[in-house]
């Protein structure tokens, strides 16, 4: 009991020690344990996530930059993935103390370009650990996207472009440097990118109003938009070229009145006026006749007169009532009359030649006191010559170049609208559709590589490449085709259509020199130093030899190159013609310093093959003396009875008549650029529509005379001979830019020349020109190729 107080002291001491120790430990812990530790982990995660999002943006930008060079998206993704990895390494190196390690679970990049709604985007899922901070297995998923929508353009050429990012949030901080418009430079066949001249006007919803840089069509444009993250989108206001095909040629024809109330007002305006007193009228009721389909009708009047009151003109259909066209302006004089034209096309649903003559035009003088004077009332017509009516399956090979030009047999097709160059599209994205007899369907085509301004074929274009100035898009069409649409799938993962490469038509065997489109068989003889082609269709066969100068035929030290065989729409071979020492010296006789090149193409669905002959005369210190230059000699020998009882005939176009049809000569001979008769588009050997021949376009017909100016006289032409021996007959057709008519001498200058044309073979049908005459034949596709109206549209 006496020790109870001591126990209390001891207990108090213990309490004191515990109290002091607890306080010390607690506060030491508080003071020495940094509260910042927890936020550091959060900051590290935030910083890492932010860096990952940035790296993803950069990676998508990188992917886009690669896609501008190659259409191989697999390759682009590989490079971009490598880039991403280097970015991740870089993030790790920024904070070595964190000990970051990444594992990319998903990297998905996509692009859809060259459409009016285009985008580039990327998704990433990354699992990472911050071992230095004790964090493991953090999963982060993020995405980025840049979208561009092209809108309608204003009448004054301003373009609306909507730009959004990520989750369709408007991106409004872009400047003119972020927009690059594709502008085609015709001079060097390249696309250049141009920034707008002025800063765009930005709206809150991400819409930009941008003025078109010079050289950019604000209604058909391609624009590259790049955001500050580096993400690139190439958008286009169109995704297809639509080519409306006008097969039949159309002409403006004037038809004067042949019947009228006064003789003076019939016929052409001639200064001979009919006086129309006040309150009286004059009319015309019948006109000159014609042929073809009337597409448009215009009324015309030549007159003068003035005073108080009015001058009027009216029309009447089919004897009905007169309908006032309108009041005519007053004034004019006899030497300087007034003229007016009225578009009457819509007055009838369609016009025929007969109902043209039931259409009357009347002039009425409603002046109060003055006479009026009428010289002539007549019609002008837009007339379509229906020359393709009986030629529905003739194949035309169209070559579309990057600059928008379309060629056929070396001649540019007439395009009634402005040219639309082809953007740098991935080749794999391109498709071709045609409306055939009203049915829209995808059709075969091929894209080819050419060098030296489309003069040297290199082969089919790799589907990973981007359409460029060395590419040519080739497709076939016939008169049943009313529209051709070249469209593209802007997806980076688009797969090239089989229509671009699959062989549907050919059974070729290059090792044996065989090209066969299942209609026409070409056998290329390249044995020894030869290069000659025998074409065979049914019972008809002809052999072509190439390049003869001054009687010396060319030789071929190298085999021809089968640049494209088993193609999608055509085969192509080419060879270099040379002249050796076989006829003395070396090179072509009396024609030194010359290179020659031959390109032969066999289209699908065709009874002809096409040729391209190129001669390159280099500057020569020695004179050249050319009196015979034969590019092509076609020859065959047949029995008189092979194709019919009669001898086969030689037919050659020898000018055209007033209606545009050939004047045909059935005599052999040399057809050259005679005065007023230069049209020799074709020449053939034929009997009962069996035979062969050559044909060419108007431009190439003129090219046949290219050496006339060098010779100083007519020398170029087509030579056709017909040699008969007992019952056999040998026919020869030669394309000869130089003939003995006039020699080319001394001709030392540098000069390159090209000739294009086609060699047709026919066995009972589709002759160049029927031996029975008429208005059909393959000559039409050479002489009257279709015209094109080109527009851009969005392919749906």
């Amino acid at each position, binding site marked *: 009991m006496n020790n109870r107080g001591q126990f209390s002291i001891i207990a108090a001491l213990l309490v004191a020690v515990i109290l002091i120790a607890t306080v010390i430990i607690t506060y030491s812990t508080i003071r020495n344990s940094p509260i910042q530790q927890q936020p550091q982990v959060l900051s590290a995660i935030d910083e890492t996530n932010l860096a990952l999002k940035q790296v993803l943006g950069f990676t998508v930008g990188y992917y886009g930059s690669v896609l501008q060079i190659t259409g191989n998206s697999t390759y682009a993704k590989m490079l971009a993935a490598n880039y991403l990895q280097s970015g991740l390494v870089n993030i790790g190196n920024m904070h070595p103390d964190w000990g970051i390690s990444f594992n990319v679970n998903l990297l998905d990049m996509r692009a859809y370009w060259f459409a009016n709604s285009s985008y580039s985007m990327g998704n990433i899922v990354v699992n990472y650990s911050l071992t230095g901070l004790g964090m493991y297995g953090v999963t982060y998923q993020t995405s980025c996207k840049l979208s561009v929508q092209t809108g309608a353009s204003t009448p004054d050429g301003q373009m609306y472009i909507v730009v959004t990012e990520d989750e369709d949030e408007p991106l409004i901080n872009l400047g003119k440097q972020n927009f690059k418009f594709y502008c085609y430079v015709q001079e060097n066949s390249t696309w250049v990118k141009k920034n707008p001249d002025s800063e765009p006007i930005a709206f809150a919803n991400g819409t930009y109003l941008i003025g078109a840089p010079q050289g950019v069509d604000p209604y058909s444009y391609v624009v590259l938009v790049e955001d500050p993250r580096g993400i690139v989108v190439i958008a286009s206001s169109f995704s297809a070229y639509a080519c409306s095909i006008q097969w039949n040629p159309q002409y403006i024809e004037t038809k004067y009145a042949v019947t009228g109330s006064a003789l003076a007002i019939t016929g052409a305006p001639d200064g001979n006026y009919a006086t129309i007193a006040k309150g009286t009228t004059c009319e015309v009721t019948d006109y000159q006749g014609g042929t073809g389909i009337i597409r448009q009708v215009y009324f015309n009047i030549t007159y003068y007169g003035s005073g108080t009151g009015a001058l009027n003109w009216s029309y009447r259909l089919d004897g009905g009532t007169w309908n006032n066209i309108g009041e005519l302006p007053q004034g004019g004089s006899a030497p300087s009359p007034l003229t007016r034209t009225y578009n009457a096309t819509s007055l009838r649903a369609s016009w025929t030649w007969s109902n043209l003559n039931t259409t009357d035009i009347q002039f009425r003088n409603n002046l109060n006191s003055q006479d009026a004077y009428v010289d002539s009332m007549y019609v002008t017509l837009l007339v379509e010559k229906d020359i393709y009516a009986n030629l529905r399956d003739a194949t035309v090979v169209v070559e579309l170049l990057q600059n928008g030009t379309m060629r056929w047999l070396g001649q540019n097709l007439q395009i009634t609208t402005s040219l639309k160059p082809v953007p740098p599209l991935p080749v794999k994205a391109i498709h071709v559709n045609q409306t055939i007899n009203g049915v829209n369907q995808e059709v075969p085509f091929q894209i080819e590589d050419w060098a030296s301004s489309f003069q040297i074929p290199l082969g089919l274009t790799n589907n990973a490449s981007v359409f460029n100035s060395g590419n040519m898009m080739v497709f076939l069409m016939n008169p049943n085709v009313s529209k051709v649409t070249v469209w593209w799938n802007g997806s980076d993962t688009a797969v090239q259509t089989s229509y671009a490469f699959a062989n549907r038509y050919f059974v070729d065997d290059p090792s044996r020199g065989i090209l066969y489109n299942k209609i026409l068989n070409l056998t290329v003889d390249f044995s020894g130093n030869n290069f000659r082609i025998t074409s065979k269709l049914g019972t008809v066969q002809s052999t072509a030899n190439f390049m003869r100068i001054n009687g010396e035929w060319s030789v071929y030290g190298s085999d021809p190159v089968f640049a494209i065989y088993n193609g999608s729409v055509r085969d192509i071979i080419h060879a270099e013609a*040379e002249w050796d020492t076989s006829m003395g010296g070396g090179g072509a006789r009396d024609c030194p310093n010359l290179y020659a090149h031959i390109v032969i193409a066999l289209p699908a669905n065709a009874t002809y093959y096409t040729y391209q002959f190129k001669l390159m005369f280099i500057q020569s*210190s020695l004179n050249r003396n050319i009196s015979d230059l034969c590019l092509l000699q076609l020859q065959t020998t047949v029995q008189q009875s092979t194709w019919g009882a009669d001898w086969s005939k030689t037919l050659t176009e020898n000018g055209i008549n007033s209606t545009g049809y050939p004047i045909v000569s059935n005599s052999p001979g040399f057809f050259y650029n005679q005065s007023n008769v230069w049209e020799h588009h074709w020449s053939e050997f034929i009997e009962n529509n069996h035979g062969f021949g050559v044909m060419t376009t108007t431009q190439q017909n003129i090219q046949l005379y290219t050496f006339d100016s060098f010779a100083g006289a007519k020398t170029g032409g087509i030579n056709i001979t017909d040699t008969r021996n007992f019952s056999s007959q040998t026919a020869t057709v030669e394309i000869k830019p130089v003939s003995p008519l006039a020699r080319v001498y001394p001709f030392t200058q540098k000069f390159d020349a090209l000739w294009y044309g086609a060699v047709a073979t026919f066995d009972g049908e589709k002759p160049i020109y029927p031996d029975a005459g008429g208005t059909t034949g393959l000559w039409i596709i050479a002489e009257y190729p279709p015209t094109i109206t080109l527009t851009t549209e969005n392919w749906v």
Partner: protein
Amino acid sequence: MMRTIEVLIVIIIITAAFLISSFFAVLPSPRQVSPLNLRRLALTTLQSLDSDYALSEVVFSEPDDPVWSQLQIALSACLPPNIVFNLTVYEVHSEGGTELYVLKKSISNAESLGIQSDAASYLVASSNVTYNYRIERVGASGGGGTLYILNCTDANGWWITGYTAQSLAGDLYNLLSPYFQKTIPINNTQQLGQVLNGTALAGETLQNAVVINTCGEAVPIPSGYYNSSGVGYDASHSSYARYSYTLGQRVRQYNWTWVSIVGYPLYYVSNTGLFPNEQNDWGIYGMRSVGAAGLNAFLQGLDNQAYSYDSGWITGEPGLVYLSSNTLYYCNYYGIYPSSYQTSTRALPSSILSTYHLNVTSCIFNQVGNWIPGAVYRHASVGSTNYTGSLFALGLARTPDIRLTALGLLCDYKPRLYRSDYNATDTSRLVVLQLGQVGGV
């Protein structure tokens, strides 16, 4: 009584313990208990500044650009008044797998950030630099970069079907000039002589140049010194093979890459003024056959061997040959896609590698047996790792496809189109914002 004393003692002890505990129980300052998270503030500040990518643009500016002061103003505006900052920008290099951070610029609003500060880093990349493909020209980092294209109007070509030498030169110019520092057309043989003499035509770098011979199997020969006996002419064999030997020596001397685009290299010499009445038996005047001796002599010159006339034919005809995997890779890289197979009738033998101390640095086509259809051969003397002259020979049949020439050179020189590494030079910068707090507690 005693208990009273003990109770007092207990009270004293407890009181003392409380006092002692109170002494130790000094609470941390409020700032320490709930500090301003400077790291987080720094990061969010950097994010804010870069929300419209302004920061990314500024940090790639030149150090003396006024935009830096605007950035400093923006930083001051973003941060509370009691926060001082130091923003430092580093350029990120990657050399040999090691990251190097080079200081580019630093801005601050205080001399010192105090004893307590924290920092956040932020990585930005230049979209201008990184994501538009931009051709890095050969020689940009020194060492050559000149492309000579033989466009000699007084020399003719052979085996260049469909082309003239001049039209080929034009096509090659369009294709390759973007990849070289300077592209110089050599317009006549006199200019070629000038270059062979070591004189630049337009201030270009002569050393390490690439020379493309557009004349196919022929090679332009300057008149005068280069066709003189013992230099260009081998009188004892009546052959201009000696010129090829001299050419090989020049290629070695200037460390050129001589490019033969088709056929048998150096088979003819051509100069319309020098050989006005001589032709190649095919009607092309101004040309004289050298035959196989030309290539042999060239290789001797390249290897600095003594000249010895050798007319032995060394090429073979492997026929169909295919692009190598390396070439196919670069087809994609440069977007150049020639046909993946070609016909080779003038392939060089692999034996020349040992005979003339050549190394194949780029094989354009897969080797077929002992035949190398197309490759870049670089010469290195025995015991040396330095290259002294090169030959790029495409032993293909005509017609030449100049895309193969371009592709072969690009495969070998590998000029960069894209910034392939995230941290390649001048593509990314590291921004570090360090914050400190000043003022009272």
